[in-house]
């Protein structure tokens, strides 16, 4: 499945639009990491616990979005965007959304199909 945050994928044409797909997650870290983060706030620098929180949220939200796209029978998700909001201190919601489409190789524009064309077959 092709996933990009652009509206077009060069060499391909949208045959059919399957609709908006989305995935979101709200995660909180556990108390130990929260306390470690407040100690780290003393000296500053990167807060690895919170970074991991955002990374896990992003992975889970993307997984849910791609699962929805697969359910709709799409073979690509275009124009993926992320937005976050704070639920409470130490917890964040990450919302990923994109458009699920069915791509086909664009013959007139690209007389030779891009080498990764089989990914949408």
């Amino acid at each position: 499945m092709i996933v990009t945050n652009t509206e077009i994928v060069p060499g391909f044409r949208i045959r059919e639009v399957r609709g908006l797909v989305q995935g979101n997650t709200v995660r909180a870290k556990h108390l130990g990491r929260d306390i470690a983060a407040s100690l780290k706030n003393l000296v500053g620098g990167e807060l690895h616990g919170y970074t991991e929180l955002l990374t896990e949220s992003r992975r889970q939200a993307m997984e849910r979005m791609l699962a929805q796209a697969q359910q709709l029978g799409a073979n690509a998700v275009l124009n993926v965007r992320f937005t976050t909001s704070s639920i409470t201190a130490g917890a964040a919601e990450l919302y990923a959304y994109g458009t699920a489409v069915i791509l086909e190789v664009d013959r007139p524009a690209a007389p030779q199909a891009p080498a990764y064309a089989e990914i949408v077959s």
Partner: protein
Amino acid sequence: MDGEDIVGVVVGVLGLCSAVTPIFLGVVVGTLIERSHLKRLARREAALQGILVTQLRSFPALASSHLPPRLICAEVVISSDYLRTLFTNTRKIFGGEMRSMTRVADRARREATLRVLEEAQGLGYNAVCNLRYASADLAGNSGKRALMSPIFVYGTAYIAAGPKVSPAAPTKSPFSS
């Protein structure tokens, strides 16, 4: 001076030390951490030659290859130290630019951008387009202790042709010390 006075003085000094120590620790260690991070950022930016980074959506300089375009994301959360957190609360009274927070946000942005570009390069791509920045709000209403800058960066990696425009040479940023 009798025993009670001595105990009072000792407790007072210890109390002062325990109040001053975290501040002192924060300033010294925090400044060292910031300086070493800025040096690492400059080094990594210099090592990242030959990658075309744009914020355009139109895949500039696209070349045909076997690698499909791919979404790449990275995030980082950086906080400032205790003393600067205290000073920003003072700054709120008088208004004006919070230089230390500008520096923290700048570091977080540079770090997250470097992570995206290094991941793209590691996967074999040499160009990233449609680079977008988002910030999260992890602090909520937790007040003074939570001055942090969470930055989330994502873009589409692809293969570009021709001579690459390397990212801006790491000149001295106006926000770095």
